[in-house]
Each structure stands twice: as structure tokens, then as C-alpha cells.
């Protein structure tokens, strides 16, 4: 299990990174926690690897009241420790294990677009975006709804670099929750639900959105504002899980309903606490 040979590029600034990518059309190496296993198993054999770990512009995290922007070289653990976005941090704690999070990056997890991964759900439920850059072209922001194209497939084009991701902050009287079931602690979710609930001044639900993972090719966003009590049924109907070695489709469909209820309940509770 040794990776195939590749040519290695280690650009020192963003301009260099983009021009290298434009030139060699290589694969981007950030944390490598998903890419290197694939290389070691020789499931991928890129001719060029562009290592962005030495690009200072990408190692930046900017927290503002309305949201947090996380650069492509920022590790899971750094965001976790900074505690800048409570819902994101909660989701991060569900990503693999602490040692993996020391090296893995937030933007890498998004670009990897695993349909059972947690961070895409957070981006999706919040309506966040990913900023893409290309040499000689203006940067473009792609909303979560367009960013996740299919299983392991994102909107990042060849020669393009995902430079940062933006996670909007939760507003007033708004709470979030992340519920998932995994086989082992730290495994990818069999199913998971990220919920965001906003309450009105009167305490009634004003908005309720769910993003479900492990039950479709991309995070499935479901708006249950109108019928929060019926969330389980709605998500079960809206999702199309597959069966695999770990769980049947029927189980996943059932599970996502259970988790939707739990996540909604917990998000509502948090919204109430934040409104008080």
C-alpha cells in the first residue's frame, strides 16, 4: 500500500498555487486525510500534487458576527479549538477522531463531498458557500446547494482551488443541533441530521431546516418550517438511502426520521435558550 509516483509542487503563495494548478491540473493536497488513503490504495494516481499547506493566505480563519470564513489550509482542530461557530464545532467533534482532525481541513472535507460526512450538512443547512479561485479569473462563491454535485463530487473544476468556505452564524433566537448514528465512534454516519431552528418572538417556530446525510448522493436539505411535528415522515419520504454492508436502506430511511425529530427537538431547545 504505497502511493504511486507523482510530481510534487509546494507553492508559497496563493498566486503561485493558482498558476501551478492552472498549469499542471494537479490534485490539491491539503490535510490529505482522505486523499492519501486513496493514493496508498492506488485508487487514485494523479500525476501532480499541489500541496497548499505552505500558502499563508489559505491558513486564515476570519470570524465576524455574521459568520466565519475558513481558509483551505485551516485544520479541523484549529476551528474546533477557536470555537468560532458552535454548530460547526459540534459537527467537527463528530468528524473521525481527534488525531485525524489535527491534520484534516474543513474545506478539504467539503471538497471531498462524501455523502455521509458531517461538514457538508452544516454548510448546506446554513446556506453557506465555498469560494473558488482560478488563475486569471475572478473568484466565485458557490452556494452549498450547487457545491455538492454528487457522491464524492463537488463543483470544483479542474485547475480551480477551493480557497475558503463561509459558514453563516446562527441568528438570534436560533439554535442548531447535529444528531447522527455511526457504527463505531468516529465512523462516517449511517445517517445524520443537522438542524437549524429559528423561533419567533412568541416562541413559535419561524423557520426549521434540516440537512440529512448518508441518505442520498448529497446532503438532503428539507425545510420543515410548516410542519415540524411531521418532520420524521417528511425526511423519510424525501430521502433515498442506499443499503450497504453497514445498514439497509430501510433502516437508514427509518433512522433519518428518528434523527430528524431528535435534531429538531434539540435545536429548538437551543433556540429557546438563546432567545431567553
Amino acid at each position, binding site marked *: *500500500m*504505497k*502511493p*504511486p*509516483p507523482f510530481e510534487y509542487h509546494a507553492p508559497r503563495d496563493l498566486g503561485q498555487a493558482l498558476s501551478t494548478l492552472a498549469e499542471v491540473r494537479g490534485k490539491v493536497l491539503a490535510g490529505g486525510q482522505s486523499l492519501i*488513503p486513496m493514493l496508498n*490504495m*492506488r485508487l487514485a494516481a494523479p500525476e501532480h500534487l499541489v500541496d497548499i499547506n505552505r500558502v499563508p493566505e489559505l491558513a486564515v480563519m476570519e470570524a465576524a458576527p455574521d459568520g466565519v470564513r475558513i481558509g483551505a489550509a485551516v485544520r479541523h482542530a484549529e476551528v474546533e479549538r477557536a470555537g468560532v461557530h458552535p454548530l460547526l464545532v459540534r459537527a467537527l467533534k463528530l468528524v473521525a477522531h481527534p488525531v485525524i482532525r489535527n491534520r484534516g481541513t474543513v474545506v478539504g472535507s467539503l471538497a471531498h463531498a462524501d455523502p455521509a460526512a458531517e461538514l457538508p450538512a452544516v454548510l448546506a443547512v446554513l446556506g453557506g458557500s465555498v469560494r473558488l479561485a482560478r488563475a486569471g479569473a475572478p473568484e466565485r462563491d458557490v452556494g452549498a446547494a450547487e457545491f455538492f454535485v454528487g457522491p464524492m463530487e463537488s463543483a470544483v473544476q479542474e485547475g480551480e482551488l477551493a480557497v475558503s468556505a463561509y459558514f453563516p452564524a446562527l441568528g438570534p433566537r436560533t439554535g442548531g443541533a447535529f444528531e447522527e*448514528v455511526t*457504527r*463505531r*465512534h*468516529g*465512523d462516517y454516519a*449511517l445517517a445524520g441530521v443537522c438542524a437549524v431552528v429559528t423561533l419567533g418572538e412568541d416562541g413559535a417556530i419561524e423557520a426549521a431546516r434540516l440537512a440529512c446525510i448518508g441518505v442520498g448522493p448529497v446532503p438532503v436539505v428539507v425545510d420543515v418550517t410548516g410542519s415540524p411535528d411531521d418532520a420524521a415522515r417528511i425526511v423519510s419520504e424525501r430521502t433515498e438511502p442506499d443499503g450497504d*454492508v*453497514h*445498514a*439497509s436502506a*430501510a*433502516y*437508514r430511511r*427509518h*433512522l433519518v426520521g*428518528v*434523527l430528524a425529530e431528535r435534531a429538531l427537538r434539540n435545536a429548538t431547545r437551543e433556540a429557546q435558550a438563546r432567545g431567553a
Partner: protein
Amino acid sequence: MTTRLFGEPVQRREDPRLLTGQGRYLDDLGRDALAAAFVRSPHAHARIRDIDVGPALDVEGLVAVYTWEDLPERVGRPLPLLIPHPALTHGRTAYPLARDVVRHVGEPVVMVVAADRYAAEDACALIEVDYEPLKPVVGLEESVQGAQLVHEDVPGNVGAHLVQEVAGADGRGAREAIETAPHTLAFRLDIERSASMPLEGRGVYARWDGRDLRVYSSTQTSTSVRMAVAAALELPLPQVEVIAPDVGGGFGVKIVHPWPEEVLVPWAAMTLGREIKWTEDRREHFVSSAHERGQVQYVRAGFDDDGRVLGLDVTILHDHGAYTPYGIIVPIVTSTQLLGPYRIGAYRVEFSAVYTNTVQVTPYRGAGRPQGVFCMERTMDKIAGYLGKDRTEVRAANFIGPDEFPYDQGMTFQDGRPLIYDSGNYPEMLRMVKELIGWDSFERRPGRGIGIGCYVEGTGVGPYEGGHVQVTSDGRVHVSTGLTSQGQGHETAFAQIAATELGVPIERVSVVTGDTRRFGYAVGTFASRAAVVSGNAIALACRKVRAKALRIAAGALEADPSDLEITDGMVHVVGAPSASIPLSTVAVLANPLRYAFDDEAAKATQFSGTSSPDRPPVAEGEEPGLEGRDYYSPIRSTFASGMHAAIVETDPDTAEITVVRYAVVHDCGRLVNPMIVEGQIHGGVAQGIGGALYERMVYDVHGQLVNASFMDFLMPYATEVPRVETAHLETPSPLNPLGIKGAGEAGVIPVSAVIASAIEDAEGFPIDRMPISPSELFDLRSRMR
């Protein structure tokens, strides 16, 4: 300071090196060796039409490429069938490199040798093998239909078929007893495949100096690898030495030998005149090392109103994978150990070991016992359920009594000897485990259940092990035994035995295992036998040394040997500590010398006046040196036992299964080191939890192992394993001088049975198939409600 160390929780002597990165595992050796890698079959069943190595020849660093056709006749023969058995009428083993046909994904086809593993894998990727795919046989049901054959010359895919029958006291067979029993039950049980999965894979490193071959292998048996390699390479045995270095876990898979690589790597080293090393990677391990466990069992039981089993009739289908190099030990163990602590009226067991196009099946910790115990314990629970009795009451009604030992089960065990239990106390053990888990006060409610499982484990099988003990003139004690270590703490346990027997501080004792340069006669480490067989052999060797030391010291002290004892490394007259002589001096006296290489040696030279000029310097019947060698060859196995109980909770919504408490009562006779025994139990239970709730080998219809990675083969982490509460019962074995029984495998054996019992209790419907995942529990609920 006391020298009584037997039975004490002595800290391990292996640890300082293992904790500092100074252990020497296989891949830590041979830094300059060439690397080997293999092209392995991507097909479960295929005919090899052609192999084109051409595209690989330009790879930088490539040294050699070998296919089966390149092997000399003796090396190219099928690997040995290690344990023949009359019932194994169609035993089949693989060629070291596939010849014409491949029979499972992962079977080695081409061997590549290159400067390093990276280059070797580059070359493997470029070699083109043209396969004609054949229809694979996957799964027990497909195999027994026999429509497709794994081996053309094995009709019906049946490698072995064996019926064993023990009549009841009234002379009636099991089937007859069941027919006339007041109550009967019939059911089917399924157990899926798992595997040993040590964290260090296999590995071989060989060097040839033009005359002698040295092989390092991550093996559970260095002496037998040595004989197998010498035979395959047609080398005189004294020119081959095999060393098991530090081994990163075995759990059964490393007892198989010679693995193809254990023949091919030394052969290539000799052929090329270069050091060569092969280190198995994880993906290779999944598809080319052995699996175990997979069985289907059809059970019929007849019993009376008290739940006493009058007749038990079990038919087992055993999936043996593509080959049977280790014979049919696993289904034999299942069949014979199934009876557990019970006296069963009449018993009939029949198994068919069938071939499939999957990785071969050889023992994994427990070696067929977990399946047998699952069968027996599910039977006990079903009887209790049927009669509306407490599950422990039904078990107690069937126990062999404490006064019934030795108890003859009337069968032939895996060592070809009668299955006679040596000692035990099952009612007391049941009492202890019920108390430990709080059986009688358990509050049952939906989603919360309690389960129990009992087992008896034949341990310490023969034929023999040996020990060599040498006291050198510096007072150090050097112990060696031929069997190997994979983490069981042998260096510590054997040192405790030697220190106790010889009366020396343990700091002066060192132990070497698994090195044929130090000890050439041995069998290996498996079947919970090391402490029993090597432990006793070392004790016996120590007793020889002790007797000799006392003889020599008696001469020097002008005392009678029977008046002497050894304490803290000093031989002294009982009750007169001042009349003493250090063991180091005795060692000097035991070896008359001509040359004084140091001050101690000077005491033994010919003008030192220590020996009488009237007698030969080495007395008649004596040998120079203070050393001894002895062997222990048990007449038959000792039988350890245990009972586990667990409380589980099942989530009503998600069907997640949580083991809340896990209790173990264990009897392995006298404990050499309770800390080590507990560690063995913890580890065994953890593997059992893996087998019950997480691990399985999933083959698709094409014979592809679809979860061949640690991402998808779910070995439990710390977050998945419950804390284990333990208690010990000690019924010494009357069969060996130290009174010990084996403990290595025990922890894993009943776990699937216990967890199934508890889930069944929580859910209220039968659990007849293990392992079980939340998804499967959910599916069962859907069907049952």
C-alpha cells in the same frame, strides 16, 4: 526479598523495550534488504491464460519477477496439508504461486522483488495477467448445492465429512432420545466470518550466506517453519534457522505455515544471493491471510421437564474457504467443545467442511469454540424459554457435578485423544457469575436485557514443549523455550516460574522464545497451550538444574543435598544461612576450566584446588555446566472453563445496542500471573464484542471481499468495548506439575452467545444469527412486530 513469584502480578519484563520503540518486529529488521510484493488475483475463480511481465521490466529498481513456472519442482509443489485427518478425504492446499487456476481473490500469482516496496508495487501494477473468469462459489448454501465446483476433483465441494455420536447411559443414540423426549426443539443458527486481524500483518525476512539460511518470520511457530522451509528448499535442517522476533499479535492466523511467502522469500534470497523481506500490508492481509468462524448449524434437542437435555443432534456446515492447509481442526473443535460444562444424555454431531472461492479458513482465537458455545448456549436459552424457567436454572440442571471429575465426554478431541475433563466446579462458577452481575436482582424491561454464556475450553494440547535453563558464572539464569510469543508476556510468566523453582531474583532471569538457534524442539503457540506446556517444561528443567546445583553445593558445603535450599540466589543449609554458597559459584564449580578468562573462571581452573585429583573433573554421569533441559508432554488436554454475563440496552428508536455491563468468572487452574491472565481475558472479550456486534467479512456474489479495510471491517475502538469485571476460580489441573490450565483464548469464546442471550432478553424475540448490527436488529423488529 522473596523469591516466591509464582502467582504474583509481576510487571512485564517485555515492556521497557516495547515502550521505548526498541521492540524488533519483522519489518524493523533488514533495513537494506530488497522488498518483495505480489500480484494477487482480482478474481475469486479464474483460469490463468497468460502472464505478461514485460511492461514491468522497465521499472526502476526492479530485481526479479517470478511466476509458478519459474519455481523449481520442490518449491512449486502444493503447500503441505499440515494436519491430515481420515475424515478429510478431499484436502486441498494452494501452490505457493498460483498454477493455472486461482480460487480466491488475493491468491498470489506473481512475486516481484525490487529495491524497495514502492518500486515492487509499481512493477506489480504493470504486470498483466490474462484471466478467464470462472463462476465462483460463494457462501455455504451455494457451496453445498455443488452446482459449481471450487476444485474440479472435489465433488459437491465437500472436503470433509465427519459424524461423531455418543450414546446415552441407556445405550440409545441422540436421534432416538430426541424422538422419545417429553419436549423437543429444532432451529437453525448462523455465525458469520471474522478474522484474527493482528495489528502487525505477516512478514518474512530471509538471508542466505552461501551455506546457511536465516529466516525471520512473524509466526506462531518458528521450529515448524524451520522444518517446512528446510523440506521445501531441500536444505539440511542444521543449515536453517528461524527466528520469530517481536510479533505484533497472532490470534491464530500466524500458526499456519508455511505460508507461500515463507517458502518463496527464502527461496528468492538463495536464488538471488540477496537479503529479501516481505512485509504484508493491510489490504493483502484481508484477502490472503486466513479467516474463521463462518458456520450454519441445524440443531435438534430433546429434553425433560427440568430442562435436562436427553438428546442433542447438531449438523454443521462449515465454510472452509478455498483450501484446507490446517486440516479440519476448526469444525472438530466446534463439534467436541460444543458440550461445554454439561452432561448431555446422548449427542450426535455431524459436520461437512465445504469449499468456497474465498480466503481459507484456519483457527482464529477460540478456534471453533465460539461457534460451538453459541450453539449450546442458544439451546439452553431456548429450552428455558420453552419451559418458562430461569436460564441459569436450566444450565444448572445440566451441569457436570464437581465430584464427577475426571469426566469423560466420550469423544475424541482435536489432539486425537479422549475428551476427558480434568477438573472444574461449574455450580460454584455459576453462583459467582450470578452474584457478580446481579442476576437475581436484575430488573428487566423492554430495551434492557441480561444474558449468560458458559464454556469449557480444552487447553494445553500436546504433543510437547521443552525448556532449557542455564545458570552462568555471573549468577544469571538463561531460559529458552521453542514456542513463540505474540504479546502473552511469556518472558515474564516463564521468568516467574524459573525464579520460583530456582530460588533466584527474577531480575537475574532472562527468557528467549521462538528462536531455533536457542531451542530447536517445539510445537508452537496456539490452543492456549504456552503456559501449560512450556511453563511446565521450564519448571521441570529448573528442577533438574536445582538438583544438580544442590549436588555440587553439597560437596562444597560438606552437607547433604536434602538439607539444602536456594533462596535469593544463595544455596544454603536449611536453618543455617551462614553455611552458604552463591549459585554463581556453583555454576563456576559445575564447569571445570583450563583457562581463566576472568576472576570467577579462575576459581574453576585446574590448579585452584576445587576438584579432587582422584576423580575425573567432570564426574561420571554429569555434564559440564549448570544447565538442564527437559520436556513436558501432557497425556491429554487440561480443561479451563468460564462463565460470562452481560447487561445490554437496545435503543427503541435507533436499534443501537449498548453493552452496559460485562462480567467474567474464569477458571484456568493456578494463575502464574493474575495481571497477565486478566489482560488476556480483557482482550479476548474485546475481540468477542467485535465478533458479536461489529466484525464480519462480507463477500459479494462475485467473491469480492467488499469490506476489506479498517474503514469497513469494524474492529472496536476503546469507545465500543465495555469495561470487563472479572473474578477467578482456581481448580488446579491434576494433570501437570504446576496445576495450570490455559487462558489465552478464553475471553473470546462465549461472547456472541452472551450478547445474543441479552439482546433476546431485551427484545423478546430469538437472536439466532451473529454478529448483529443495529440495522439487522431493526430489520428483525420490523419482521417480528
